């Protein structure tokens, strides 16, 4: 074993790839294999035509041999109708817009709940911060699906919330929150909250408390000091947390499927339907590529802000 490693080291060392090179190369290779290659496959399928076959799409590149004519032809078919369908049928556009809306509301709700949480944890005595952060991460220890099913029990017509409201007399009959957009908001805000709290906490915790003392010393009241000092300095955390919530929320499938109503239209569900119900892989691929393009913009903003922050350090 040791001999193999040393031979490998020698070979890689010869081409200047050892130590630091390998450390970087392995994850890159991983991403190439399992991200870039599938992406290219999906990208290819999105230009293909749906056929009833196995796999259910026409090959993009075909080598046609006509024995009678004695010719060989390389045929490349690029089918753009899949993308045209996305713009032609307003189902897709509505699904996109609705996904963005739900993701946006989820992000804002996570921010509204997560910021005070992160702030309180960052201001807690150092010995208490670890356990508090632990509690934020704790839900990850149980299955995501189980937690969503638990929400069904809480939100349904004769569930916990409904029964409680009836008991207090605030409502006369059962309240059905499940299978509505609100159930989706609640479920998704719950799921993604830790992704908001973690980056916010790490920026708020790093903040120098003497900056707030300096602001107070210069005549700034506590709330204004928060707006003028704490908030701008935690902006990188807000951006990171928002993107960590927004990006996966746009493509979310499980939560709206389980908690949402039949009219909770989200691009993740459309994608699933196209793939598995319609078996129309090319359109599904086109939807996926379009979704990616929608997400590239916030990712670029994220990169830009991160770059600027790194520069500022």
């Amino acid at each position: 074993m040791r001999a193999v490693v040393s031979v490998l080291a020698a070979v890689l060392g010869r081409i200047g790839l050892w130590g630091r090179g390998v450390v970087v190369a392995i994850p890159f290779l991983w991403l190439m294999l399992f991200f870039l290659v599938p992406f290219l496959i999906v990208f290819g399928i999105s230009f293909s035509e749906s056929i009833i076959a196995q796999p259910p799409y026409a090959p993009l590149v075909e080598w046609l041999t006509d024995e009678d004519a004695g010719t060989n032809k390389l045929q490349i078919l690029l089918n753009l109708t899949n993308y045209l369908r996305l713009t032609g049928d307003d189902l897709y556009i509505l699904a996109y817009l609705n996904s963005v809306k739900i993701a946006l509301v989820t992000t804002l709700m996570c921010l509204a709940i997560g910021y005070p949480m992160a702030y309180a944890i960052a201001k807690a005595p150092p010995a208490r911060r670890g356990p508090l952060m632990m509690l934020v991460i704790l839900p990850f220890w149980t299955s995501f699906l189980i937690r969503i099913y638990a929400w069904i029990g809480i939100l349904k017509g004769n569930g916990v919330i409904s029964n409680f409201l009836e008991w207090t007399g605030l409502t006369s009959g059962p309240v059905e929150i499940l299978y509505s957009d609100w159930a989706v908001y609640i479920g998704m805000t719950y799921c993604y909250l830790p992704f908001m709290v973690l980056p916010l906490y790490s920026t708020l915790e790093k903040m120098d408390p003497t900056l707030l003392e300096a602001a107070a010393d210069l005549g700034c009241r506590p709330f204004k000091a928060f707006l003028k000092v704490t908030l701008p300095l935690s902006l990188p955390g807000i951006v990171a947390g928002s993107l960590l919530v927004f990006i996966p929320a746009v493509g979310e499938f499980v939560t709206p499927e389980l908690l949402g109503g039949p009219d909770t239209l989200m691009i993740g569900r459309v994608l699933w339907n196209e793939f598995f119900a319609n078996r129309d892989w090319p359109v599904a691929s086109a939807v996926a590529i379009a979704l990616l393009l929608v997400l590239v913009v916030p990712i670029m903003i994220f990169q830009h802000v991160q770059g600027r922050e790194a520069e500022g350090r």
Partner: protein
Amino acid sequence: MAGQPIRKPTRLEPWQDAGQAPYVRIEKVTKTFGDFVAVDEVSLSIYRNEFFALLGGSGSGKTTLLRMLAGFEQPTEGRIFIDGVDMAGIPPYERPVNMMFQSYALFPHMTVEQNVAFGLKQDNVPKAEIRDRVAEMLGMVQLSAFGKRRPHQLSGGQRQRVALARSLVKRPKLLLLDEPLGALDKKLREKTQFELVNIQEKLGVTFIVVTHDQEEAMTMSSRIAVMNHGVIAQVGTPTEIYEYPHSRFVAEFIGSINMFEGRVVEASGDHVLVASEEAGCELHISHATPAPAGSPVAVAIRPEKIALSKEPPPSADGAAGRNATKGVVREIAYLGDVSIYLVELPTGKTVRVTAPNVTRRTEMPITWEDEVYLSWRPFAGVVLAQ
């Protein structure tokens, strides 16, 4: 104490004037954190236009006292008056005080100009006036060209000047400075010391500066309060603190000093005689002491007040055997302008003597293992009671 500027003799000494009301009055202030007593019944009066230093080691309570003046900490007991107003319950943002922080605490997301303008904006000063006053302040600290930069693009010395400009731009009557020169290198520190004194005199602001650096305190301040374990050991002008320390702690904390243990032989209104086996001679001190004859005392003598000679000195005092003793040079440290000699007395006591290098060092008038005479004048010693 190289480079110590002598305070102008025309300088007011308001603490000598009984009619003058102190600008800052600290009355029996105690601050405890849990069981730890950080500041213990401290009372102080600081007057307008003073450059007042709180000097002490770490944990002496000097910073806690400063933070109580700024309003970041509330006294556990006692009261603080600034300009006659009781500061109890008044939050930092309503106090007529500004502070320069040890870490400077510049806002990293703002430019130099925005940092300096911050305090004025809180008071809703008109925009045009803010611009003028910020420009004036940056001019004063010689940073006019750096207004658009951010703090991380500045050197340590420049940041320190931004912090100073920011704390002075609101024209506070009282400026608190927490180790203002702590992060600067030695050369820059010396230069900045003089700048701070000039600015303070020009603007007529009362400065209270916290420092652990005795040289810094001596150079800049009109008066010094030496703090130890939350208690003020002595308050006085730099000269008083250096020449007439009240206690062993102050004597040893400021500069270096030789301590001779002894017993009072004769105490009168204008002089004291102390017999000291350790010194190997009788010590004649030309000031009075409350210690009665027979009580144990220590006599403190600064190293530069002791003369070294290879010949027996002409009796400084008339009476033979007083204020003169003999020893062997064990160590010499050459510092350029002065040399430090460690002289061992026959009693085993090591005495530190500093002497200016008037001649070139190569001539070596006194060298290792030389037998030398030590002598000092009656005014050199200070009697410290046990």
